């Protein structure tokens, strides 16, 4: 019996092997024929957008608002019938907050998922990782985060004709408010930031303006990621006696530093101005630690603009009353709408026409006030707000008080060979 069974199975195997070869032939034929059948997009085929978000890893806290902004915009666009009669469809990739994974995800989304264009990545390191991929595959990437500005030496992460910047850079986020801060508090800056490209370049650009305005830097420190203790930094700050602590630490280091800064009783003696701590981080700090500090960005949930009221209403309806939004999420929202406008204008979705039509496009419905994509260097022109944290805030709606705002801040031209 046993032997028989064995024989049978061998026979079976032979047959199945032949079958396999045969079916492989069909599959190959089918695959050859498939492009001819599939390629010409039907009018009803969705436009596929690949999103790369930090859904796990160190910057998970920012991932939620990041992706929510884009999803909300896509809902709004699809509710109106989509673009060119085609709906937008999202394919999501998790960056795990690691540049290495960004490369994998960008390749997967472009080659396997065949997305029409990409949006997202979070930190400058992530964007720089995606740069070569979108350059080689010739796909557009819509980048949402406030960042250090474009310098030729970081090409193709910046100065890349396929990457569009929807977040502010230092000449928009910092420069417009320096005069106010220096007149009010004094001209001595102490700079503290995380040890990577964004804080270093941001401080470099800030120093240029500081010099112009007759200010000086009395201390400049960069902190490695995940540093728990700040005693020696706090001592250096006391010794240097700055008028303004200019703060660009990121992630949990922000919270660690500012908690210890407050615990050391230094809040009364120094003014702190942060360019990194939006709604998500400030919520983590609590009112006692964050109260009276200054923050500057292109967007805050607290800004009083009719567009923002409308935007927040829709946002809260979809994601709940307590959901957090921030500058990056709003940039993702704007990116989706502006891409849709560009596709509508072009009448088609290929990379070249998307790129050509994104240049110079304006979006009046942006939550922070009207924005425009600058033609030459793919840099968005946005409003800029300086806020002071309300010391008795209870939630994001009363977290920030407006100090000053500029509705249209034109940044310096990108340091690239222009036009891109």
């Amino acid at each position, binding site marked *: 019996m046993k032997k028989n069974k064995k024989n049978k199975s061998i026979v079976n195997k032979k047959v199945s092997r032949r079958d396999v070869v045969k079916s492989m032939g069909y599959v190959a034929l089918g695959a050859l024929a498939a492009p001819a059948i599939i390629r010409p997009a039907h009018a009803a085929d969705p436009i596929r957008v690949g999103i790369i978000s930090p859904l796990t890893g160190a910057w998970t806290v920012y991932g939620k608002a990041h992706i929510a902004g884009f999803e909300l915009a896509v809902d709004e666009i699809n509710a109106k019938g989509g673009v060119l009669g085609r709906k937008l469809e999202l394919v999501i990739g998790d960056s795990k907050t690691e540049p290495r994974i960004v490369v994998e995800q960008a390749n997967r989304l472009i080659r396997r998922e065949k997305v029409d264009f990409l949006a997202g990545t979070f930190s400058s390191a992530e964007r720089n990782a995606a740069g070569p991929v979108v350059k080689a595959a010739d796909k557009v990437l819509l980048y949402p985060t406030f960042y250090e500005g474009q310098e030729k030496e970081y090409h193709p992460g910046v100065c890349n004709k396929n990457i569009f910047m929807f977040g502010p850079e230092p000449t928009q986020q910092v420069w417009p408010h320096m005069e106010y801060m220096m007149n009010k508090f004094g001209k001595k800056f102490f700079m503290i930031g995380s040890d990577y490209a964004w804080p270093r370049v941001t401080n470099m650009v800030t120093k240029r303006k500081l010099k112009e305005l007759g200010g000086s830097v009395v201390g400049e420190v960069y902190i490695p990621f995940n540093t728990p*203790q700040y005693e020696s930094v706090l001592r250096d700050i006391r010794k240097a006696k700055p008028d303004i602590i200019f703060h660009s630490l990121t992630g949990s280091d922000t919270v660690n530093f500012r908690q210890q800064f407050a615990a*050391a009783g230094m809040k009364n003696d120094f003014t702190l101005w942060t360019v990194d701590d939006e709604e998500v981080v400030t919520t983590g700090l609590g009112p006692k630690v964050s109260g009276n500090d200054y923050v500057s960005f292109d967007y805050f949930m607290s800004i009083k603009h009719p567009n923002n009221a409308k935007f927040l209403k829709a946002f809260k309806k979809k994601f709940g009353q307590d959901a957090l939004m921030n500058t990056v999420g709003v940039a993702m929202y704007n990116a989706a709408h502006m891409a849709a406008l560009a596709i509508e204008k072009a009448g088609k979705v290929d990379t070249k026409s998307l790129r050509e039509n994104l240049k110079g496009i304006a979006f009046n419905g942006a939550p922070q006030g009207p924005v425009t994509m600058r033609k030459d260097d793919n840099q968005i022109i946005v409003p800029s707000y300086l806020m002071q944290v309300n010391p008795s805030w209870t939630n994001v709606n009363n977290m920030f008080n407006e100090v000053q705002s500029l509705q249209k801040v034109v940044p310096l031209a990108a340091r690239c060979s222009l036009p891109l």
Partner: protein
Amino acid sequence: MEFIGISVDVFLITATLALAAFGLAIIYGLIGVINMGHGAMLTLGAYLTWFFISLNIQFLLCVLLSGIGVAIIGVLLEHFIVRKFYHRPFDTLLLTWAFFLITTEIIKIIFGTDFRNIEAPIAGAFDVFGVNIPAYRFLVSLFAILLIIASTAVFLKTNLGIKIRALIQNKEVAGLMGLDINLTYKTVFGFGSFMAGIAGGLIAPMLSIDPYIGNIYLVRSFFVVIVGGVGQLLSGTVVGSFLIGGTETLFAIFSDQVISQAAVFLLAIILLRLKPSGVMNKKNV
């Protein structure tokens, strides 16, 4: 003045790091389990403290409850998994790493990924000879040193301590002499977890509470235990913490943060080359 200020800083950092590393010093130092889940235990302690505080329980009680909570989780982990691997220490490395991964994901599911914070129960700072000392950190540091001394006294002066030392010296003979080996292992593992939970709760008001909070201390804790000397509960932990934490402050006086953090680890490597079983271990293999 400058000197006093620096000494205070060095004391605060050393004591805080010793507190964070103590749970590991017990579990790794005494029973040889390479506990990569130590960071997750600190994180659990912080989240449990946050949770109990949200129920309006008094802070110190919250910390105690968190210690007990983490101890229970630790004992369960020991009972179902770790105890089958005491003779294979390197496998415990993978097991406890898995514990870290799973715990972190569960924390994300239950508490979400947002930053949370606990207000320091004692706010502000006080001045001594013109040196500014943050009140809460100072008290936690004092408490940490007392805690470590008290635990070491238990280890050296009590029956339980004798049992544990017997177990470490010779497991077979201790068993033949009638010692309940399984129970002793379990006690030590549970006690180490308890200390990690307490540390997580006490450190929480100084840091951001996020699912990875404990991992800031994981690598540093291992360095503390290994440089200080595995098995040297009091002297090893305190001296190790000084060498890994305190010296960072000293280096930072004349170099920047990035270099001083690197210099500390370089120092650790040199010390280990000179004294392979740790600074405070007399017998060097």
